């Protein structure tokens, strides 16, 4: 992109990604506009406005030098851990399953921020680990502890979806950091054994039920299987071209639950059909491809791991949400990036995105620290 006549700050942005992304957000805004019965309030307007604000924040993040990231990695992680404990303690006192802290001007969900947080701290960890140690226990035990603490707490909350997202980000970093394959094979084997045991002992009843219902949604047509069934009906009835803007009966007549948050994709697909779905997937492909390219082209280990981990986190959001709404995964409360209404999750996604942009900047200006 050679744009000599535009200011450097603007020209420097990765417009090839931001532009499609902005289209996707506007598209999401249109869907939310329709879901609200043809109104910018309460969701659509806020959605686009938030994106713009958080895009600014992401660009801000992208201007931070790499050593800030490195220096801040562990303190940020530590702070988030303390906040998680605090949330748990306050939640116990409050007697509910409260997962956020009310900071007065906004509600903060520490587990949400832990998703990029774990990526950051593990990228820092593997960067500082001597390459020769990568095959030894020093590569796995500290990382395992860094992961186990927040993931364990989030499971206690109980929020299985977020715990899985944190674990996924961490495992991707470990994988890319070059841990021996046998760890993953062994880990996979252990998970295959421990998974069923944990399923029947550790999980809460309602979580177990969700899994059972996912396997057979018709068994509970009015309970949690209802979500899956109605979502599939919404997507399927849209056909290729959809029912038309504002004509989605599933969302407008409230058959589709959470039509503006977790199931926003179904709301979209009902009105815009497969065409709209393919557009969404294409934008996600562009964003993820951009993230991975940035990671591969990154100048050093830290930025490589950081960019790849952030990309994986965005991917995990998208993949789990879409699999859920299409009936390929159990119902877990994970929103769809850039389309679902919700401040906390958008902030997380934009933190990830900003970090990827930052890595891209470091690669363009080989002035980053060695």
């Amino acid at each position, binding site marked *: 992109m050679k744009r000599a006549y535009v200011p450097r700050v603007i020209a420097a942005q990765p417009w090839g990604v931001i532009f499609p992304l902005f289209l996707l957000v506007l598209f999401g805004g249109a869907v939310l506009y329709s879901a609200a019965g043809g109104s910018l309030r309460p969701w659509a307007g806020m959605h686009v406005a938030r994106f713009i604000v958080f895009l600014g924040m992401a660009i801000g993040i992208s201007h931070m030098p790499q050593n800030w990231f490195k220096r801040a990695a562990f303190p940020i992680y530590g702070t988030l851990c303390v906040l998680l404990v605090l949330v748990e303690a306050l939640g116990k006192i409050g007697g509910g399953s409260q997962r956020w802290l009310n900071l007065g001007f906004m509600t903060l969900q520490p587990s949400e921020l832990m998703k990029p947080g774990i990526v950051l701290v593990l990228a820092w960890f593997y960067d500082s680990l001597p390459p020769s140690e990568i095959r030894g226990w020093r590569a796995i035990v500290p990382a395992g502890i860094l992961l186990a603490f927040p993931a364990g707490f989030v499971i206690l909350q109980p929020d299985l979806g977020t715990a899985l997202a944190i674990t996924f980000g961490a495992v991707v970093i470990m994988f890319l950091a070059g841990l021996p394959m046998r760890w993953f094979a062994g880990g996979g084997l252990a998970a295959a054994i421990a998974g069923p045991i944990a399923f029947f002992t550790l999980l809460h009843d309602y979580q177990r039920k969700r899994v059972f219902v996912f396997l057979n949604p018709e068994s509970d047509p009015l309970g949690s299987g209802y979500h899956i069934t109605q979502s599939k009906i919404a997507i399927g009835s849209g056909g290729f071209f959809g029912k038309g803007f504002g004509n989605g*009966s599933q969302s407008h007549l409230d058959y589709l639950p959470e039509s503006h948050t977790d199931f926003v994709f179904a709301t979209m697909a009902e009105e815009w059909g497969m065409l709209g779905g393919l557009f969404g997937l294409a934008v996600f492909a562009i964003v993820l491809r951009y993230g991975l390219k940035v990671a591969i082209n990154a100048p050093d280990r830290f930025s490589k791991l950081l960019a790849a981990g952030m990309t994986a986190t965005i991917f995990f959001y998208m*993949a789990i949400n879409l699999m859920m709404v299409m009936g390929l995964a159990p119902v877990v409360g994970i929103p769809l990036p850039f389309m679902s209404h919700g401040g906390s999750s958008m902030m997380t996604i934009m933190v990830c995105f900003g970090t990827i942009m930052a890595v891209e900047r470091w690669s363009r200006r080989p002035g980053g620290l060695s």
Partner: protein
Amino acid sequence: MARKQAIPTSAAQLSNAFDRRAFVLGMGQASVGVLLAVRMGYLSLAEQAKYKAASESNRVNLTLIPPRRGWIVDRNGAALASNRADFRVDIIPDRLVDAESTVDRVATLLSLPPDKVADLKDKLDKSHGFRPVEVAANLGWEQYAAISVRQPELRGVIPQRGYSRYYPTGAVVGHVTGYVGPASAEDYEKERNPLLITPGFKIGKDGLEKYFDQRLRGTPGARRVEATASGHVVRELGTREDIPGLPVKLALHGPLQDYAARRIGLESGTVVVMDCRTGDLLAMASMPCFDPNSFSDGIGRIEWKMLSDDDHVPLRNKVLRGLYPPGSTVKPMVALSFLEAGLDPHATVVCNGGLRVGNRVFHCWNHRGHGVVDMEKGIYQSCDVYFYYFAQKMGMDAIAAMASRLGLGQEFPLPVAGQSYGTVPSPAWKMRKYHKDWAVYDTVNATIGQGYFLLNPLQMAVMVSRIASGRKLMPRMLFEDQNPRFEPLGIPEEHLELVRRAMTEMVNGAGTGHRAQLPIPNVQLAGKSGTAQVVGLNVGNGKGGIWNHRDHGHFMCFAPADNPRYACSVTIEHGGGSGAAMPVARDVMTYIFDPAKAMAALEDLERQWGGNVEQRMAAKYDAYAAQYGANAPKAANEEQVAETVADDNKPVAEPSTAQTDAATPAPEPEVAPSPVPTVAAPPAAPASASPVVLPHAGTTP
């Protein structure tokens, strides 16, 4: 760490590994993306038709509108069962989210009393699936509106405006019309008709409502609306009106039925009035009865407790299902059989108060004796010895044949669920049933309507109408424009004349039935009374004491005596003798000729009884509600009610062993009848206690 000799990993190697693994990761992500695209294509292209249909069935709500039920009207077109517009609320158990709180909420909004709330919870416990459970009917607009506006929060609660069954005369027609109720699970299994599980739709559960159910049902209307998941209607898409069911017109005379039922008063009894020319059943009252209005709304615990406690068996239609030994009412029939067999009506016997047969003495009800008795006197004085004596000469077969000719032991082609047709004993019958030879005392018992003899009040009415008309009259319940032609019985007119004369004498002359005289100038009543023993004299005298040990009282009659037009049979269960039946028959017949005069007499009586049927039932309900409230035991569900009704309507069993002794005739009503039973019927005896004919009474050897 088997390969410890491997050279330590270098940064370059790691970078290399990163590239390879990032490629794998990218491939993995790409394949998930492809998987999602394929899945989406599968859902929205391959399965599109299926999901389109599902979405459409979500969007459009088809509600059946229960059809208005056909009316049941009397011979003059007055409604016995009609419909009234009402507001109602149902709950569909399957759609409830939080049953407990929803029910409490609804109960508060409708301000239901605690016993109704308990009833509702019982019903919800027992029900399942999409069968609606009625919460309340006949609601006011405010209550209906209170539920309607909160419908989105009350999932599974369905307020509706529609029509509910209404029986203007209530309990007095309950046994004839029957009642309606929501279809049971079995009904639905049988028909698989979605109408059956439409809230507000009811099917006939008993009586004519059940017999003519298909005819009365009609065709449902339908309403298509676009509705949200929580049931909030967004807009109407179209409505098809219902087609009401066809009416059923009865031969019954509504006001006469009403009068007859009311006149039975506190007693347990029946009144049947027949037209002697057409066989039309003008009244067939069986009291006490349930109120079909509240039965159709669902039977609550308080009502159920009332019904269960009542030893007068309100659930039994005694006109068709009550079997009683007829007592002396069979004597005109027996006399006809004597005449048929060639007995000279002037042949006499001397009654000294008893007759020695073999080594036993069979007593006449009048122990002082009747002196010289011929046939007419035998009837109007109801002399037992006359019949003991000649029955032995004429034989039981002649009597049994005449009984059958007059309709005893028969079922009639009527639109009813069933009839108990009783027993006309004969030597052949006894041999078939008990493998025992007919004995002299069997004949003796039968001639006075005791022993094995059992008939229902309808048969008694048919018997007297046939004696009065001389034709083979058949009873009919449905109104028809054409009058049927009934063939003659084949009994010589002079035989009938003699019996009718004796029956007229019985009421108006030297007989035992003066109490039945009509207070109408120029209209005479002819009749015959009967007192049937329920327990042997060794147990009780049949007049007082325990209610269900008292004698049954019968009276059958026709009027005018010289030109019979109306026939009537009255049975008062445990009335203490025929003295209880005669005034009822008199007043009912009076009503036919002079309603005002009869009504005045009734109103006097009702003041003593504590109001008319409706008022007394309401008072009793209030007393029960105050005493038990929600603590009354659970109400029976549909199946149990049906079972109980069936149980109560089972015919009285014939004794399983042959009788071996003679019955002693109960006194005829020169003896003062027992006083009116105490107002509060003692709820001691179980409701299913049926009158059982005890086979033997004390006889002297």
